[in-house]
């Protein structure tokens, strides 16, 4: 007596039914219906014969993880299989229903049971039985948390082959299965894939085939033990010979991993996290009289750095000895620029100061009507910078006079970027401007909140962040948004772009690496506090400070931490890396130099 449709597959339906041979008790069975769609009568007959042969084999199997087969029959173009009704849920449903990750001990238990049943099938005489279709939806988890393998390949012949371009979303099958070679090692791969999916919640059918290696388990779910990860990695090797050679040996490896992590024994884990904390010593450190919020400049053996103590310092890059200091009348939070022996620096005293690099004597100053938080940018005989007086200034380097002033709607604290005869800068009301060399606006874009971030450009695309939590990529010529990337919080930090990647810090504490073409996140690195420092890439590493007080050195391609250096105050300025040496200022008043 058919009670309910419990599933619909590619070749027919599965029903729940009550076996009326036992009228006095409720015996539930599953009836699987397969519709024979082959147009050729000979092929149809062949399919039915194959089905009956395989049903016969399955009916003889006796294993707790394999449903019992009670009966089979064929009628017209339909064949039916009557089998044990399994209470519980399939693993795919379980993965999807679980809010977070499934626990390692639970998945480990299932994996061991799956090895058992595969081992049983593979050692079947006279011929091993290859399951061929291991995937979460074919694994039932019963109410006592044991697994039962369902949907044996018996239904396979009913799938009518398609001609021409076809679609396949296998996801769990190994490479060799597509060459028509499916041995016991194919089941091992698929088991690895199933466990990977269960632990990572990343459905392999939505990813490129055989891309498990690109999704290391512990990167997605750091709670997983390295031991289990290693076992799954072995099972998922492309080359069958590199996998476990039998389901039994995979089981042994799983058990060993479970013992080691303590998940399979009642004794508490003896594992202690050993983190190597190699003390990084600065080559030298220089103490200013107040916070160092700006970014240093290197020029001909000297390092120049401004401080909130109003001074611009010139230090000997080799030993950190003071060459000279130059006092402005306000805090200095900008990065100095250099041109023909002169150092340019903006100050909160509303002025741009031009000081001789050699002597520290002022050559000339230029007055704005607001504090200068924007760093000077020198190009084409002019210095460009913004001011809180709501203007973008272009000053002639020879005359020290304004070439033009471009009026903006709010203070400009973003450092202008100059390229292709145009100047780009953000503004505190969210406007982003593109101005030509005559001081006339070419285009402008409005972000929802302030753009304090200083833009950078590569291949005709300009990048900047906003306090509105977005990171923008705009067409540099016309200002269209090509893409935007959502960060957890806003950002006042500036991006750095190189080789198809752009790096940006955010107030959400992360340093993001984004692919410039696809706008996809390549990695993110979490710091303990907001990041307003701008990343710098040197060789293959990203250097970036955080308000948590650390300077981080992160592998540019992977986002893995190489080392960090802890200062006693928040870091808001950006590092400078020159000749294998990192220079970084901290709010603890020090400028530090470290080996890159």
């Amino acid at each position, binding site marked *: 007596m058919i009670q309910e449709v419990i599933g619909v597959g590619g070749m027919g339906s599965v029903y729940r039914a009550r076996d009326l041979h036992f009228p006095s008790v409720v015996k539930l069975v599953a009836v699987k219906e397969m519709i024979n769609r082959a147009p050729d009568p000979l092929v149809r007959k062949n399919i039915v014969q194959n089905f009956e042969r395989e049903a016969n084999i399955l009916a003889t199997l006796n294993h707790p993880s394999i449903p019992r087969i009670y009966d089979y029959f064929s009628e017209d173009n339909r064949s039916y299989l009557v089998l044990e009704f399994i209470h519980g849920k399939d693993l795919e449903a379980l993965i999807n229903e679980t809010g977070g990750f499934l626990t390692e001990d639970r998945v480990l238990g299932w994996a061991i049971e799956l090895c058992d049943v595969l081992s049983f099938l593979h050692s079947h005489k006279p011929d091993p039985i290859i399951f061929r279709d291991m995937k979460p939806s074919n694994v039932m988890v019963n109410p006592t948390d044991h697994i039962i393998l369902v949907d044996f390949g018996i239904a396979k012949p009913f799938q009518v082959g*398609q*001609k*021409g*371009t*076809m*679609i*396949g*979303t*296998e*996801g769990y099958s190994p*490479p060799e299965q*597509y060459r028509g070679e499916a041995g016991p090692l194919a089941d091992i791969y698929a088991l690895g894939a199933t466990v990977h999916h269960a632990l990572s919640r990343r*459905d392999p*059918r*939505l990813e*490129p*085939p*055989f891309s498990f290696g690109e999704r290391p388990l512990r990167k997605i779910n750091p709670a997983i033990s390295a031991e289990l990860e290693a076992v799954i990695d072995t099972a998922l090797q*492309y080359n069958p010979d590199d996998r476990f050679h039998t389901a039994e040996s995979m089981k042994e490896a799983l058990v060993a991993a479970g013992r080691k992590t303590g998940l399979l024994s009642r004794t508490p884990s003896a594992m202690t996290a050993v983190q190597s904390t190699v003390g990084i010593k600065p080559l030298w450190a220089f103490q200013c009289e107040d916070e160092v919020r700006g970014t240093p400049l290197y020029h001909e053996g000297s390092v120049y750095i401004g401080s909130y103590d109003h001074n611009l310092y010139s230090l000997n890059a080799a030993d950190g000895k003071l060459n000279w200091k130059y006092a402005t009348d306000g805090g200095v939070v900008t990065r100095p620029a250099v041109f023909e022996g002169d150092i340019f620096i903006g100050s909160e005293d509303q002025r741009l100061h031009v000081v001789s690099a050699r002597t520290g004597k002022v050559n000339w100053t230029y007055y704005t009507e607001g504090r200068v938080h924007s760093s000077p940018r020198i190009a084409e005989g002019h210095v460009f910078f913004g001011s809180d007086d709501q203007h973008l200034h272009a000053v002639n380097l020879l005359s020290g006079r304004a070439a033009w002033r471009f009026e903006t709607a709010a203070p400009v604290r973003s450092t202008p970027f100059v390229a292709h005869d145009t100047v780009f800068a953000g503004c505190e009301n969210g406007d982003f401007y593109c101005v030509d060399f005559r001081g006339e606006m*070419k*285009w402008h*874009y*409005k972000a929802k909140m302030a753009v304090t971030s200083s833009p950078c450009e590569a*291949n*005709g*695309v300009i990048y900047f962040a906003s306090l509105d939590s977005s990171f923008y*990529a705009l*067409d540099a*010529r*016309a*200002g*269209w*948004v*090509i*893409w*935007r990337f959502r960060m957890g919080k806003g950002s006042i930090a500036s991006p750095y772009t190189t080789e198809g990647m752009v790096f940006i810090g955010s107030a959400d504490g992360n340093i993001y690496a984004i*692919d410039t*073409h*696809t*706008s996809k996140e390549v990695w993110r690195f979490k710091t303990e506090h907001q990041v307003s420092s701008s990343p710098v890439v040197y060789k293959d590493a990203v250097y970036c400070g955080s308000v948590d007080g650390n300077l981080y050195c992160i592998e540019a391609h992977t986002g893995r931490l190489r080392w960090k250096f802890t200062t006693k105050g928040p870091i808001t300025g950006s590092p400078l890396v020159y000749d294998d040496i990192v220079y970084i200022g901290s709010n603890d008043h020090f400028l530090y130099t470290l080996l890159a």
Partner: protein
Amino acid sequence: MKSFFDRFRIKKSKPAVASDQLNVNTVPLSEKQLGIDTIHSRRIEPQQLIYGCGQSNGKQRDHNEDCLFVFSATTGGDANVAPLGLYIVADGMGGHQYGEVASSAAIRTMGNYLLKRFHTYLINPSEGMEEPLQEMMRAAITEAQRAVTQAAPGSGTTVTAALVLGQQMTIGHVGDSRAYALHTDGRVEALTRDHSLVKRLEELGQITPDEAAGHPQRNILYRAIGQGEVLEPDIFTLPFPQPGQLLICSDGLWGVIPDENMGKIVAAAPNLHEACQSLIAAANDAGGPDNITAILVQLIG
């Protein structure tokens, strides 16, 4: 819907008008002189996207499951208006008549969705566009997915679309149709990555490119529009190849003609229309096992 496209038809013919004018008798230039090389040596204003396209059933299929969509808009006179173009190739699959239903539904849906977005820009370019180009492309593909699922359930289609705006092109891609940058130095650079099982095996070093070319399962895709609930299209933005051309084609072309030959055929042709016809003829000469579609685009000025 029809009247909406009619409005654009006037625009669409603009570049064609320009080349027609060059062909009238009063202009003493031969077809060859008007070719690609000539175009580079002359100053052309305004900047514009010119194109050619071609299509064939091939020699072994009795019907065509490929679709193509081409739209080029040029506005002269205002320095701030960049040329706009939308170029799409879709290769449908699914047996019976459903393949062509899928590919045409995808192309019409994407064309409609994206051109609506750009309608204001074309008429009044000073009104900026808020929506990021990549998000528009993603939304267009999502719309196409919905339309294909509705119009031809169970079928699927590839889509490779290039939205060109000024110097940048945003490409949306699902399946195994391809976009190439044809460089003037002869390099033929594939911009897209096939979502096919065989390509994946090749990327992993499991099979050689030669084995891939003759692989019995080379038609199996792991991503297609109309398939699966979650679709993850490849979307990316690159500078438009200049000098050079953009080629978008179905596997009926690239699966038959080696990449470098495609570059040679285009370089040898007097113009983009002829180049497309030569590409298609070459694929048919090589057996024409599948439907063939090609679009060539060039940014001049």
